[in-house]
């Protein structure tokens, strides 16, 4: 059964009702259990659990330390292209938007890589808009080959690929896939993704499975928080992560919690996710999936990021620039989203150290 089929089964359940019925005892039981079931996960996401947040946090802290130690992995995003053929109403790169678009040529990629690697970053996440025309797979392959001279871990956040294509990238040393479903609410998904291949909800939802079959080493999923009701979105994110963990036991599954920070336009997020809710969601994922990586990007402020250390986070981006070509040329331009934490890699490292954790730059060795 694919996750889409599992998803449809769950859609028949009145999840609001499940959340509403949660009692304090259910939450306490979930906190004290060693291995949580879906019901326990729902209990931790309920409004009721919001009152017991400190206790959940204590448990999450202990679990994270045992599983991952007192370390935070750092990576940096590298935007290769702002060309995109999709129309996602919330995104700064959407095709209808009139803006200067750019796709880096090999010499430019090399320059960006030099600047980033000088900061000590060893894990690079390459990003493109979704345009097979401007950034075909051959372009991605060539870019990976350049970047592997500078970095020991390479992840991709690009358009969804076929299993065969994922295999090809794995074979040249790509370790990680980042692919957010954006919205697990299928009806709203259709509303936000008005044109382009990304309109196909099911194809996107099943992409992590294709990458899992291709033996991708890590897969990160997530919902773009603000697009739909947060609690339910995280519920489905957790279900998908659990599904992937079961099916692809060799692959490390990570969950990200991007909150919508729109760029270039008039779109405002219809759902507001407070800091407290963000923390509650993250803690619930940690207890439900003790071995899952948890990622927080520079979309969030440095102050919040610093407070989140110890609550389950295992990975952070640092010194991020979301403008294509922006590392080597500090010119202004439009990024995909607005960055809150503008601290340098060095400042981010110091922040982590001041929290009693070790910033880890290198965590894999291309074989």
């Amino acid at each position: 059964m694919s996750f889409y089929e599992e998803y449809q089964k769950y859609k028949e359940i009145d999840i609001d009702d499940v959340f509403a019925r949660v009692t304090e005892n259910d939450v306490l039981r979930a906190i004290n259990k060693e291995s949580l079931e879906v019901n326990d996960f729902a209990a931790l996401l309920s409004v009721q659990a919001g009152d017991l947040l400190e206790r959940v946090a204590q448990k999450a802290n202990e679990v994270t330390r045992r599983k991952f130690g007192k370390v935070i992995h750092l990576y940096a995003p590298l935007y290769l292209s702002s060309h995109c053929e999709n129309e996602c109403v919330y995104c700064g790169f959407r095709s209808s938007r009139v803006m200067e678009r750019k796709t880096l040529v090999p010499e430019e990629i090399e320059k960006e890589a030099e600047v980033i690697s000088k900061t000590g970053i060893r894990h690079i996440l390459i990003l493109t808009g979704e345009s097979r025309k401007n950034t075909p797979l051959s372009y991605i392959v060539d870019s990976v080959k350049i970047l592997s001279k500078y970095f020991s871990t390479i992840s991709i956040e690009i358009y969804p690929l076929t299993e065969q294509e994922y295999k090809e990238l794995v074979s040249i040393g790509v370790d990680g896939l980042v692919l957010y479903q954006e919205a697990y609410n299928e009806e709203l998904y259709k509303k936000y993704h008005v044109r382009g291949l990304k309109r196909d909800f099911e194809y996107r939802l099943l992409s992590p499975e294709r990458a899992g079959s291709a033996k991708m080493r890590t897969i990160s999923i997530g919902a773009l928080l603000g697009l739909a009701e947060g609690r339910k979105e995280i519920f489905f994110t957790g279900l998908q992560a659990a599904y992937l963990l079961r099916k692809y036991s060799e692959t490390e599954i990570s969950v990200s919690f991007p909150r919508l920070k729109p760029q270039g336009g008039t779109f405002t997020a219809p759902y507001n996710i407070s800091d407290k809710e963000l923390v509650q969601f993250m803690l619930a994922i940690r207890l439900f999936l003790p071995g899952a990586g948890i990622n927080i990007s520079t979309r969030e402020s440095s102050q919040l990021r610093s407070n989140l250390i110890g609550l389950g986070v295992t990975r952070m981006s640092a010194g991020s620039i979301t403008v294509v070509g922006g590392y080597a040329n500090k010119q202004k331009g439009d990024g995909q989203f607005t960055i809150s934490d503008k601290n340098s890699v060095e400042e981010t490292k110091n922040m982590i150290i001041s929290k009693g954790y070790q910033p880890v730059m290198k965590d894999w060795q291309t074989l």
Partner: protein
Amino acid sequence: MEDQFKIAGQLINSRFLLGTGKFSSYAIMRDSLESSQAHIVTVALRRVDLGQKNENILDYIPKNCITMTNTSGARNAEEAIRIARLARKMGCGNWIKIEVIPDTKYLLPDNAETIKATEALAKEGFLVMPYMNPDLMDARRLVNAGAVSVMPLGAPIGTNKGLKTQEMIRILIEEIDIPVIVDAGLGKPSHAAEAMELGADAVLVNTAVAVAVDPVIMAQAFSQAVIAGRLAYLAGPGAVKEEAAASSPLTGFLR
């Protein structure tokens, strides 16, 4: 009392081995290694960074220690073999701890792939210490494949649950002629003492030390517990007997 501990013919000064992952800083790791008096320490190759910009974990390992690279991250024999070869190329020496873990949920090792990797690497001259699920037949296969010790798990990595596999480990201790080193799952010094009392040749700990509030003191506590457990083992069976002496003996009439 003379009590030498040798692996592959080499004298090892401590029966306490320490891993270097999960520490909050390299400085604390180094201080913990020192207070532990460990002679063999394990380092994940994935963390070794020989670039110019970042700190190099190897610089923080006391000079008198043997650094044993582990293949953390390997999901099959082939990846473990490649990591080991890379480690040797990078100057990390011949001691290799094979970890083949194709399961991200429980972090359990794959014995079959571990045996394959052990055989290949032993042939290439590595001193191979395989991390394994305690199974007697597999341990024998590892011996035949050329392992210099076997490292059965006490409990899954990072669980701190103690000697959950005690009975199986006891059998390995009885049957396997190369050193049996209990690895993973030991959460407190008493667990380590228990493994040593059982007759394990040594123990390896990482998480319980690295994430303790004071790792430096915890390293010392483990180290002393290992010594105590060893002494207890050498001192012979203690007061606790497996079977209780019956109050009315069944064979009393024979007297």
